[in-house]
């Protein structure tokens, strides 16, 4: 991987009050040498790796449990991916799906902050054969 460049997708949980515009303005206000592009789901952030990570850490202070990020392989505006250049966006279906689930993760993070414990999920067990026979009245 390039030691220098890092591009990140910043995504806001649907249950958050923060808007993509606020994210972009907050990044601009930091005055760091990064490129930021507003997107429908949040923003695309690009710059030197250390600076980008600092910006993400700062940005999380806005609403730490509602701002999610991941690395993006292609740089912002890459003609192979950017819609402005009629690029394809094969990863967007995944992003859209995960965006819809972020509120559940946000809830989980808030519970984890409060020190709550996980409730064990009721697992569906296989039906014992005797019980199945009883149901079918095969005996």
């Amino acid at each position, binding site marked *: *991987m*390039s030691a220098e*460049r890092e*591009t990140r*997708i910043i*995504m806001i949980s649907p249950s958050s009050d923060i808007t993509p515009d606020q994210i972009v303005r907050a990044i601009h206000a930091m005055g760091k040498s990064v490129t930021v592009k507003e997107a429908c789901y949040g923003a695309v952030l690009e710059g030197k790796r250390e600076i980008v990570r600092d910006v993400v850490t700062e940005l999380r202070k806005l609403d730490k449990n509602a701002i*999610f*990020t*991941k*690395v*993006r*392989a*292609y740089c912002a505006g890459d003609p*192979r991916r950017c819609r402005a250049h009629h690029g394809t966006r094969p*990863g967007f*279906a*995944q*992003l859209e*799906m*995960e965006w819809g*689930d*972020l*509120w*559940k*993760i*946000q*809830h*989980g*993070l808030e*519970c*984890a902050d409060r020190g*709550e*414990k*996980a*409730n*064990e*999920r009721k697992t569906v067990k296989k039906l014992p054969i005797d019980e199945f026979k009883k149901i079918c009245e095969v005996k």
Partner: protein
Amino acid sequence: MKVFIDPPNSLILFDLVERSGHEPLSTMALIQEKIENTEIDMPPMNVSPDDVMKGLKYAGIEVPSGVRGRLALWGPMIEEAEAAIIMEDCPYGFGCVGCHRTTLMVRYLIKKKGIPVLNVNYPNDEEEGKELVIKMKEFLEGLK
């Protein structure tokens, strides 16, 4: 620690692993390397015959090319991993769509490697979201 995430392109898993101070191993970082650092072999994605051979290390020649192609990227990543988090029962559109055989093969490779593995279920509601986050937090804190 380097933590392999499955699906390897998941934002949720990537973010949660990174929040715990570990390094998530994801497809995105590998693709970045491919499109940036290599010389222009086969533009635009730079998939070269070497990648095909890498895939052959993990799956035989009779295996469909899609499986080998994916394993050419994910196989070396699993070798590098020190722990893994696998999300189970994902909906169809979640993760790398189209090849369940690759998913099975990835799980087999992880199991064969013998690294600590956490299996979590896809969250269908907020209670399951809580369960996912807390289980991952406990697992990742235990790795330190």
